[in-house]
């Protein structure tokens, strides 16, 4: 392993992580056009789901790069609750158009 770096300088690592986070953020920004264009409600909801996952990735990258371990917990809560919007869409959206009927127990 002659010539392999002993330990990459932390500044380089932090810069790399920030560039990675910026790249992911730009993914979200560009993906917004699907929310604006997407003809069906499904397209918009899908994009929101993707942004949730991308947001988790950004938070994890920032946590490692900037040295903020608390952001990992934020990412965990994100990953857990991002499904909430999609589930609400599936269950409540149909109601307005005569979808799932209400149950009485």
């Amino acid at each position, binding site marked *: 392993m002659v010539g392999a770096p002993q330990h990459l300088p932390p500044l380089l690592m932090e810069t790399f992580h920030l560039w990675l986070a910026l790249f992911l953020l730009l993914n979200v920004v560009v993906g917004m056009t699907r929310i604006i264009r997407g003809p069906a409600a499904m*397209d*918009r909801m899908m994009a929101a789901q993707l942004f949730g*996952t991308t947001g*988790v990735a950004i938070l994890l*990258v920032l946590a490692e790069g900037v040295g903020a371990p608390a952001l990992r917990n934020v990412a965990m809560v994100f990953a857990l609750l991002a499904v909430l919007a999609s589930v609400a869409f*599936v269950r409540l959206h149909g109601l307005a158009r005569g979808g799932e009927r209400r149950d009485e127990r």
Partner: protein
Amino acid sequence: MSGILNVLGIGLCLIGAGFFLAGTVGLLRFPDSLCRLHALTKADNLGLGFMVLGLAVESDSLAVAGKLALIWLLALLAGASACYLIARTTVHDPGGGPE
């Protein structure tokens, strides 16, 4: 040794970023709603997966790596189910939303 780990971590993160890009491009360019859904599940699974793998390799502790893996599993679970449910809504209801 940790230099190798850092380089490996960077490589894995870059692969993950590539999959995220693929997911976004697919979301924007595929012709059909269901095709786009297919694209974004790739970003969910593989994009986040490689990213988490890369970050776990770079992190110094096993606890952090474990937490990262748990987050990835949660995202997989939630993402796959959510995408299935969203697709099911459309298949049963081809009109889409209140357009």
